[in-house]
């Protein structure tokens, strides 16, 4: 099971698009074998400190270990999956 958390800055059109595309890619790669929590940093700045967030948007993979954070062009979700080693279940 992959456990992921996405930190965003408000529910802007850009962040909504990012969430949608990430979910589509995760559905494709992992089926139902993942959770994606979306955290609006304005609603929960304390979590951002705990998770050592330095910029938005940031995607964190908490499970399976090791914990990894990824910043940058998260729209390139194919590379995001590769960087976090989220493998496709499809052969």
């Amino acid at each position, binding site marked *: 099971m992959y456990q992921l958390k996405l930190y965003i800055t408000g529910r802007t059109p850009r962040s909504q698009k990012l969430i949608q595309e990430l979910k589509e890619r995760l559905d494709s790669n992992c089926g139902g074998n993942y959770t994606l929590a979306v955290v609006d940093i304005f609603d929960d700045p304390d979590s951002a400190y705990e998770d050592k967030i330095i910029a938005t948007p940031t995607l964190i993979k908490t499970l399976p270990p090791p914990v990894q954070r990824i910043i940058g*062009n998260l729209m390139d979700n194919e590379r995001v999956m590769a960087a976090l080693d989220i493998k496709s279940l499809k052969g």
Partner: protein
Amino acid sequence: MSKHILVIDDEEAVRKSFILALKKTGYTVDTASNGREGLDLFMKKGYDLIYLDLKMPIMTGAEVLMKIREKDKAVPIYIVTAFHQEFFDQLKDARKAGADFELLMKPIGIEQIRTITEGILEGELILEGDG
């Protein structure tokens, strides 16, 4: 062609840290010590990325953000701030108006400025682990 970055911050030490972090990257960095000066630069030149302080005299970062967004909806703007509710409250109006921006935590180190800037401008991914 070199990419252009604008840093708007009233603290000289912060402006210097961005210049230092980015001087070997090949990017062109302009700095402004207040929002009015920053807006003047923005109107005269095009920028590929803007780092914007929140708490400044003359114009707040939130006011500058809204002015820039009236002219340019696309340029990436990173508000450089501590992640505290009291600072976030200043961005409420900008959020209600649908102004797009991202956040960069303050204080931030030289190496982090460089890697994040390259990530934003070159479309690269920055991977960090714990420890």
